[in-house]
């Protein structure tokens, strides 16, 4: 197991290097120019010097190497220094956003809490709602509960968030006026009143994402429960005279959770990346919105860094899912 983990971790390094190279080269083709909005009266030689000052003068592989050094050594040192207060931050050049001219990692850390609160909470709610629904639907297969549950999860799975989002805004913000249309990020939660306000503005984006996540996970849960319900060990447990409650909630549930847990782990990176559209609709200024605005503005350092951060998360959670599978299911041996 340990060897396997180590091997996978080592294998992840070239994978991630390759992914960042691919993203880097893709962006290299980009027509965007950071000097595009400078006055046309700047003479060409000054313009050239400005480009060099921005680090655009070098050959691509040197720039890639420099970016890689900044991304893997300098930026993490600043992030760790910011969190722990240790004096380990490496002075000097940092990855600068072309939009704001401030370090990319600072902006990412500023935007992180909004995304984590809204999208993370929605994911958590999605899991909490989906598991009981999936269990009960499978236990009473083809009952009315199962039929409605399947229908709702099919609908939730099919409706794109850019449809449910505006629909909810229309009903609850425009017609009923219960919730604000726009998410106010400057709101400072310090008493009961502002807390309620925060809850109200989070309600719609969280609901949209919860519906989508719960729909997907409950389908997995139901299928996995159904697979297990007909196994021999369930018959054995019943034959031993165990109560239905113990058979379903202990024996079957524990075994059916194995694949579901890995699916949940695989979905966690989408907590960071997948909510681009929802954040755009409700104007939550989280990471997804950051990426979109960076793309609109051809802010290449920002797009590159964010995409590679997302790729790292995906690779990491893929590994975690595989390891969880092996830990939870003793029949699986990787070595």
């Amino acid at each position, binding site marked *: 197991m340990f060897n396997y983990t180590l091997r996978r971790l080592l294998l992840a390094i070239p994978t991630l290097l390759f*992914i960042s190279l691919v993203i880097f080269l893709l962006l290299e083709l980009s027509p965007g120019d950071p000097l595009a909005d400078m006055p046309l009266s700047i003479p060409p030689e000054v313009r050239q010097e400005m480009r060099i000052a921005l680090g655009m003068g070098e050959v691509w592989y040197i720039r890639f190497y420099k970016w890689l050094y900044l991304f893997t050594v300098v930026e993490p040192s600043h992030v760790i220094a910011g969190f722990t207060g240790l004096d380990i931050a490496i002075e000097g050049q940092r990855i600068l956003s072309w939009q704001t001219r401030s370090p990319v990692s600072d902006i990412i850390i500023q935007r992180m809490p909004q995304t984590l609160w809204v999208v993370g909470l929605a994911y958590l709610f999605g899991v909490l709602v989906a598991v009981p629904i999936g269990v009960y639907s499978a236990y009473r297969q083809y009952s009315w509960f199962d039929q409605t549950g399947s229908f709702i999860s*099919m609908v939730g799975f099919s409706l794109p968030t*850019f*449809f449910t989002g505006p629909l909810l*805004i*229309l009903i609850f913000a425009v017609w009923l006026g219960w919730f604000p249309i726009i998410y106010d990020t400057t709101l400072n939660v310090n008493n009961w009143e502002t807390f309620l306000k925060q809850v109200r503005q989070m309600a719609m984006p969280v609901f949209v994402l919860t519906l989508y996540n719960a729909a997907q996970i409950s389908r997995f849960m139901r299928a996995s429960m159904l697979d297990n319900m007909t196994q021999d060990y369930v018959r054995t447990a019943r034959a031993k005279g165990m109560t239905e409650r113990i058979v379903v909630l202990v024996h079957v549930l524990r075994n059916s959770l194995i694949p579901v847990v890995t699916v949940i782990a695989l979905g966690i990176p989408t907590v960071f990346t997948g909510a681009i559209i929802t954040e755009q609709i409700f104007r939550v200024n989280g990471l997804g919105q950051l990426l979109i605005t960076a793309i609109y503005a051809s802010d290449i350092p920002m797009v590159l860094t964010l995409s590679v951060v997302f790729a790292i998360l995906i690779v990491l959670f893929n590994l975690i899912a595989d390891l969880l599978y092996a830990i939870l299911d003793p029949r699986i041996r990787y070595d």
Partner: protein
Amino acid sequence: MTDAPAPTPETAAAAFRPPRNQWWDVWDQFKTHKGALSGMIVFVAIVLFCFIGPWLWIHDATYINIRARNQGFSWTHPLGTDQLGRDMLARMMKGGQVSLAVGMAAMVLSVLLGTLIGVVAGYFRRIDGLLMRMTDLFLALPLLPLLLVMSMLFRQRLSSLFGVETGMFILIVTAIGVTSWMQTARIVRGDVLALKEREYVLAARSIGTPPRRVIGRHVLPNVLSPVMVSATLMIATAIITESALSFLGLGFPPDFPTWGRLVSDGIDYLQQYPSRAILPGLFISLTVLSVNYIGDGLRDALDPRIRGR
């Protein structure tokens, strides 16, 4: 089976029924799935609406009539008009054509790629490792950001090469196809690995059939059902992805209606004219829902273990 009933005339007649194409069995099973059948009806209706509708409908999707702008539902404009007085019903049909065409084309591309890579990886052991590493690599890419970046980067170049509409169509179809073949490839590879060990494949190989023929004759027909199911689901994903790109303003240009574009245009007027954003959204949702139900029904119908129960 000690008390098997004596063969009555009916069962005897059934036993000597002339052989029947297996697709009829599939269809029989498909019919019993109510959701799938209604999904099929809805989907066919939407396709007819989008492709036959413009021939029957008097207004043109791009005709600007500024005097008739922002109208509500009426007999001349059943779904009203937009801020430039363009007929919404006609725009909905035109938008549907684009969205459905993108969905189909991206599905074909993605399924072809996925099947090709899956079959090659499953059948030829030598390049299996390489291809599967590549698949894993693609799965680790952050796809939506990448799609957005690709569409930002190449839109100018392709638009100048093929014209705005064709250029965008090629770009979006390729972008979606290239980023969505991995699931199909994995499923197909798994199936091919199992099929390769079957006796009939061994028999074919032992009489010297070249791999190309073994694949075409014995392997491909047997992986057809998972491929068909993932093809159906792929249409749904492709339509949603295209609409999401259009919604974020990185898909087709503004004067070129697609369902996603119509939703995103309509959101600006959500408070005054809610139907403008909700209706195209409803069309996308209905299409995707019906396609997903068809996929569900197809999965059951193509599984011979379930069929006939």
